[in-house]
């Protein structure tokens, strides 16, 4: 019954928007990645592990990460004022929290890794896209990790649980549940939810989002292999 449901953009309930991932796209950064999903265009650069002069952030036994999520003024319909706002500060924080469990930085005490996520164009689901791209950039930078974290959202639109909400669905829909996970173990490193869901709907949404993550995860791997495999 559910599979009959067709969404405004013609997708099935469990269908992702088209995704393109590319690793190693910048010259200067230690690692980088570019990701398009639907109308989103995300660029991520990673610097480090590098020496940091911000003493208070350093840890004696391990490396630390710092994340900056930023939206370009031209990435949205109405021009966004440049610079951080409360929304981007929160996303920066939860993105760092989503990536941190996968990092193995014991060999880099007192060092810092900077992750810069630039939203060039936004069309719903930029935080998950940012996490997915950031993981690829971290691998590209040679940062040791337990797994490649991947993000994807599910939500509720027209009383149906659907995968990977577009901007329109996010605005018109009833709920949005973005998650990030480590695909090997299935552990969840980011979870947010806004809107109204029943217990059952939530369980369904999280299952669907995890399925979506696994699909995106394959594309992350492909992008990395493509960059470095021999012709």
């Amino acid at each position, binding site marked *: 019954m559910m599979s009959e449901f067709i969404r405004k953009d013609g997708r099935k309930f469990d269908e992702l928007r088209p995704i393109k991932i590319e690793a190693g796209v*910048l*010259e*200067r*950064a230690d690692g*980088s990645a570019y990701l398009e999903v639907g*109308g989103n*265009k995300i*660029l*991520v*650069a990673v*610097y480090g592990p*590098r020496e940091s002069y911000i003493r208070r952030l350093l840890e004696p036994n391990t490396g630390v990460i710092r994340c*900056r999520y*930023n939206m*370009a*003024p*031209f*990435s*949205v*319909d*109405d*021009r966004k004022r*440049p*610079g951080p706002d409360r929304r981007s500060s929160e996303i920066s924080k939860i993105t760092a929290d989503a990536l941190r469990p996968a990092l193995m930085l014991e060999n880099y005490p007192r060092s810092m890794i*900077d992750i*810069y996520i*630039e939203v*060039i*164009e*936004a*069309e719903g689901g930029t935080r998950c896209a940012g996490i997915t791209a950031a993981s690829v950039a971290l691998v590209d930078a040679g940062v040791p990790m337990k797994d490649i974290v991947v993000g994807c959202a599910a939500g509720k639109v027209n009383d149906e649980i659907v995968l990977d909400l577009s901007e329109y669905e996010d605005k018109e829909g009833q709920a949005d549940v973005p998650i990030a996970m480590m695909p090997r173990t299935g552990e969840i490193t980011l979870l947010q939810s806004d809107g109204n869901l029943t217990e059952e709907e939530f369980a369904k949404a999280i299952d669907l989002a995890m399925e979506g993550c696994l699909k995106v995860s394959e594309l992350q791997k492909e992008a990395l292999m493509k960059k470095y495999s021999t012709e």
Partner: protein
Amino acid sequence: MDIVPEITRQSITNLVKNDKREDGRALTEYRDISIETNVISKAEGSARVKLGGTQVMVGIKPQLGSPFPDTPDLGVLMTNCEMLPMADPTFEPGPPSDDSIELARVVDRGIRESELVELDKLCVEEGKHVWMLFIDLHIIDNCGNLFDACELAVMAALKSTKLPVATIVDEEVVLSEDETFDLPINNELALCTFVKIGDKMVIDPTLDEERVASARLNVGVTKDGHICSMQKGGKEPLTKDEILYCVNTAVVKVKELIENL
């Protein structure tokens, strides 16, 4: 962190002395240029420029606003530049640095002073409603000579900009849903940047060339050869002859650059 190794300084200086460069170019040769327009569908005008390894992006967003009191019938241009920390390990997050502001202003000056955007056609209702164009530059990879890359990007983006048709109905501005018009542009312009290394002027410097250079000169020239903007930067002075050489070279080089648009 950004201390230039002494031997790098020497080797670049020696190369330039012999009319050579680290990437094999002539002193008046540009790196490869690639320009793409309409790269951001949410922006009314956009472009991405690659100049060698340097990569910049620009998006243009129009907004209706009030004109300045002294120019009640002219549209408004605002150029802003973000030297993103992703572009260079020495760029810091935070409010725009002095370098970033200088870059935006030099790029803006060429466009503004050449009057290539017909600002009078951006007036919707005199004294009340004009189009304001926000030109936002995003530096994403810094491999030297951001100036010329940014000016090319802005020029390309302006040429690709389409604005919704605005009409006044009952003293209210109404924007057409589907009707657009091309941003009226009557000229083309490019910036030519030189740096002084030893006693020679070098065009389109790489990052290392910029780092060892003693002075910089940006020359903005239109397609028809009018010099519209200049800026001298760097620690050391330039001679009049050096400046004239740059101007003469720029007038020729700008024609080549504009062909890429």
